[in-house]
C-alpha cells in the first residue's frame, strides 16, 4: 500500500512552467514597445537602463519616464486527453495585468550618466475554471516580480574609431509573489492545493552593455543580463484534503530567472527614420527542474520535497522596429515593429500553468511632444501565439490544443530636464 503514497507524489505538483518564456516580460518601456523591444542599440530614452545600460551616457541632463503596459492574455484549451470528451473547449478567465515601469537618469559629467530603473521583467498568470478538465494540472497560476536596476553609463574617450559607450548595473529583485493552485484528483472528493509564496529576500544580478557607433547612422549594441536566483517562501494550504495532508505547511522553492544576451543593430538610412533589429537569446536550459521543499514531511507526498523535471531549452527572440519623426506634424513620432519569439518549453512539458508556444508579435506606437520637456508615449502590441497541440505530455500536464493571444496597450510620460 506504500505505493499509493508514491504515485500521488509523482503527479502531485507538476506546475512549473509558470516561470517560462511567456512569463518573461520584455515590455519594460512604452517607447520600446512601439519598436517591438528592438531597443538595445537605441540610445535616446532612459529605459535603456533595462534594454542596454551602455545607452545611458548619451542622455544629457535629467530624464524621467514612467508608464505602464496592460497585458491581457487569453488562452483556450481543447481536450485531447482521456480525462474528458475529446474536443471539450475551455477558456481562461480574462485577466488584465498592469505592468509598471519607472526610470530616472542624471548626467554627472559629460561622458558619465547614472540612473535607476524599476520594472517587472517576469510576471503574468493564468486562471482556468475550478471544475475544468485540466484542474488536476492547474487552476490558477500567477507570478509577479519587481526589479530595481541602478546603473551607470560611460562614453569612452574618442579613439578615432567612432563612439564607444559602456554601461553596467545592479539588478535587484526586491518584490516577488507566486501563486499556484490546482485540484488534487488523487482523492475523492477532490482537494485543492494552493501555494502562496513571496520573495524571501532580495536577489541580485547584474547587467552590462556595450554600444558602438562607428558613424552617426550605425550603432551596434550588445548587452548581457545575468541569472537571478530567487528564493520564494510561503504557505501551502491543502483544502478538503483531510487524509495524508496537514492543514497547512510552509514551503519554499528556488527559482533561477534566466540570463539573456542581446545583439542589436540600429540603422538610420535616411533622415528621420530609425530602424533596429535585435536578437535576444534566453538561457533557459539552466531550468531543468523545479523543487518545492516543505518544512515538514507531508504523508501524502511520501516526503517533504517535490521535484519536477522541466528540461527547458534555450530560446531566441527576433525583434524588429522602426521609428519615423518627419511626418510633417510637429512633435509627432510614430513607431512600428514586428517580432518572433521561440519558446523554451518542449512539447512534453507544456502544461496549462502557462500554455506557451512560439509566437508572432506586432507593435505600433507614437510619441507626442507636448513641450520641449514633456513627451506622451503610447503603444500597442498584439501577440499571436501559434496554436499548439501537445500529446504524450509529462505527468501533471494534459494532452490537448492550446491557443493564446494577447493585447498589450501601453501609456507613459517622459520628462527631459
Amino acid at each position: 500500500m506504500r505505493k499509493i503514497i508514491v504515485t500521488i507524489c509523482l503527479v502531485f505538483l507538476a506546475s512549473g512552467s509558470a516561470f517560462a518564456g511567456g512569463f518573461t516580460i520584455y515590455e519594460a518601456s512604452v517607447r520600446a514597445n512601439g519598436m517591438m523591444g528592438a531597443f538595445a542599440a537605441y540610445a535616446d530614452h532612459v529605459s535603456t537602463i533595462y534594454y542596454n545600460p551602455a545607452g545611458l551616457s548619451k542622455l544629457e541632463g535629467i530624464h524621467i519616464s514612467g508608464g505602464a503596459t496592460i497585458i491581457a492574455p487569453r488562452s483556450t484549451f481543447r481536450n485531447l486527453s482521456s480525462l474528458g470528451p475529446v474536443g471539450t473547449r475551455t477558456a481562461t478567465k480574462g485577466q488584465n495585468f498592469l505592468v509598471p515601469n519607472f526610470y530616472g537618469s542624471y548626467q554627472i559629467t559629460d561622458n558619465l550618466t547614472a540612473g535607476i530603473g524599476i520594472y517587472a521583467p517576469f510576471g503574468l498568470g493564468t486562471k482556468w475554471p475550478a471544475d475544468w478538465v485540466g484542474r488536476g494540472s492547474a487552476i490558477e497560476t500567477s507570478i509577479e516580480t519587481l526589479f530595481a536596476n541602478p546603473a551607470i553609463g560611460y562614453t569612452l574617450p574618442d579613439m578615432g574609431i567612432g563612439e564607444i559607450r559602456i554601461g553596467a548595473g545592479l539588478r535587484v529583485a526586491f518584490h516577488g509573489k507566486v501563486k499556484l493552485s490546482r485540484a488534487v484528483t488523487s482523492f475523492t472528493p477532490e482537494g485543492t492545493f494552493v501555494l502562496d509564496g513571496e520573495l524571501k529576500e532580495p536577489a541580485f544580478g547584474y547587467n552590462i552593455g556595450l554600444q558602438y557607433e562607428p558613424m552617426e547612422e550605425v550603432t551596434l549594441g550588445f548587452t548581457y543580463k545575468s541569472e537571478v536566483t530567487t528564493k520564494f517562501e510561503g504557505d501551502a494550504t491543502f483544502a478538503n484534503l483531510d487524509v495524508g495532508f496537514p492543514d497547512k505547511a510552509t514551503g519554499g522553492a528556488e527559482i533561477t530567472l534566466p540570463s539573456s544576451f542581446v545583439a542589436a543593430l540600429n540603422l538610420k538610412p535616411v533622415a528621420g527614420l530609425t530602424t533596429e533589429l535585435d536578437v535576444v537569446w534566453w538561457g533557459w536550459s539552466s531550468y531543468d527542474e523545479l523543487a518545492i521543499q516543505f518544512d515538514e514531511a507531508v504523508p501524502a507526498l511520501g516526503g517533504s520535497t517535490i521535484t519536477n523535471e522541466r528540461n527547458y531549452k534555450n530560446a531566441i527572440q527576433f525583434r524588429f522596429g522602426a521609428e519615423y519623426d518627419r511626418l510633417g506634424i510637429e512633435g509627432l513620432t510614430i513607431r512600428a515593429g514586428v517580432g518572433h519569439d521561440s519558446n523554451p518549453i518542449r512539447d512534453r512539458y507544456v502544461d496549462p500553468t502557462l500554455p506557451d508556444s512560439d509566437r508572432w508579435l506586432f507593435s505600433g506606437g507614437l510619441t507626442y511632444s507636448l513641450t520641449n520637456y514633456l513627451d506622451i508615449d503610447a503603444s500597442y502590441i498584439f501577440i499571436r501565439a501559434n496554436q499548439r497541440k501537445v500529446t504524450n505530455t509529462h505527468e501533471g500536464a494534459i494532452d490537448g490544443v492550446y491557443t493564446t493571444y494577447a493585447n498589450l496597450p501601453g501609456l507613459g510620460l517622459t520628462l527631459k530636464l
Partner: protein
Amino acid sequence: MNYLTYYSKKLLTLTLLLVLASSCKDYSELDIEPVETGNADFSTYVAVGNSLTAGYQNDALYQSAQEFSFPNLIARQVNQAASFSQPLISNPGSGGRIELVSLEPLVTSRNSSQGQPINQQEKPFSNLGVPGAVLVDYLNPQNSGHLKERATNPEHPAFNPFYSIIMEDAELAKEAPNLHNQVAKQSPTFISFWLGNNDVLGFVTSGGEGQSITPPATFKQLYQGSAQAMASTGANVAVYTIPNVTSIPFVFYLRTQLEQQGAIAFNSETQSYQLATPEGSFDIYIETDGGPRVMRQSDFPILSAQAYFGKIQAGEAPLPIMPQDAIPDELVLDGPAGGPAGSSELEQAIGAIQRYNAAIANIASSSGFALVDINDIFGEIFANFQESGGTKGYQTDGITLRPVPGELFSFDGVHPTSRGSAVLANESIKAINQTFGANIPAINVAKIPEGFPVTSEASASLR
C-alpha cells in the same frame, strides 16, 4: 520618403487588423483526427455487464468512479464520450463506500451516507452495467431468473436496487423484463458484453455459503442465446472471459498480508497453515461444509475476514487453533482437502470458471466477436506478482500496478480502481483492434487520477 510613410502605415494597418481578428478566439476548428475503428462502428455503443462494467469501486457506485468506468473510457478513445450516457449516482454513491481515514497508518472505514441518482431522464443508458447482474438477466426467458422480483420487490431476499436505477420502468413493468430489450431498443452498432462473474462470484464472496454457482451447462446455453440476440441487432460485439477467483485480492490478499506480517505461516512439514502465538505456532482450524479441519495451502481466508483477524489479534475472539473455535465458513474459501475430487468450494468455483470461459471463447470465435481474455490477463498479472515476491504486476506507461487494493484493485479487493479500469479499457481496445482491424489509441494509464475515496471532515461530522 513617401514609401516610408506607406511602409509604416501598412504595418500599423496590419497590427490593427490582427487586433480585430483576435475577437475570434480559436484560430481554427479543432481538427480531430477520426479514430480508425476498422470494421467496428462505435456510433452507438452500449455496454452490458455487472459492477465491473458499471464502474463500481470501493464497494459503491459513485459518479467520480463511474467517470472512469472502462466503457466510458473506451467511448472517450473513440470520440463518442458525449453520446455515451451512464446512470450517475452522486458521491459518495450507492452506500457503504470504503474510504481512507488515514494514510499512515493505513486505515479505511465505510461511509454510510448515500448519494442520489442524477440523470435518470437520460434512460435508456448506454452503460447498462448493473452491479450484481447475472448472465440470465440478459434474456431472462419467462422471467426464469426472477429479474422482475429482484428488481422491483424490496421484500425479495435477492432484491437489488440497481436494476431500477439503470433500467427503464417500462421494461421492469413487463412480465419478463430483461437487459437485451434495453440494448436492442438503442439499435446499437457496438456492444461490450461482460456478464458471468456474479454467476460464480456470489458464491466466492460468501465463502461458498450464499448464492450457488450457475451450472456450466446452463451458463453455456444462456450465453449462446445472449450471443444470438446480440448478433441479431447487427452490432459488433466484444465479450469478456471470467477471471479466476484466485487472481483477485479479495481471495488471495489477506492470506498474503497475514503471512507478510508473520501472523500466520505455512508449515511445509505438516502441510498446514499455523498461527504464530507467544506460546508457539499452532495449526489453524477452518469451518467447512464437512466440519472443521486444518487450514491448508489451497484454503483462502477472504478479505471480509479482515475484521475477524483484527479481533483475534486484539484478543477479542478465541484463537482459531481448536476445532470448536475454527474460522467461520463464510470467511474462508476452502480448497480441496481429501474429499471427493472437485467438491471443495475453491475447486467448484475454479471448475465452473474454466467451463464458462471455454464456452465464452467458443461462442466468441464462432460469432466473430472480439474476445477480451481478462482471465488470461489477470492470471498473468497475478503470476508476475507472485513470482516477483509481490513487487510486480501490470507494467504500463512507466507505472506498475500490482494486483492489490490501492493499485490495480480498489479497496474492496474485487473491483478495479480508475487506473485498473483504464487497464481494462486498454486490453479491450487491444482485442477490438485485432478483431476488427481498428487502430484505436490506448489510454495513458499514468494520467488517470487515482481518485481514492477519503473520509472528509465534512462527511465525518454528519455521521
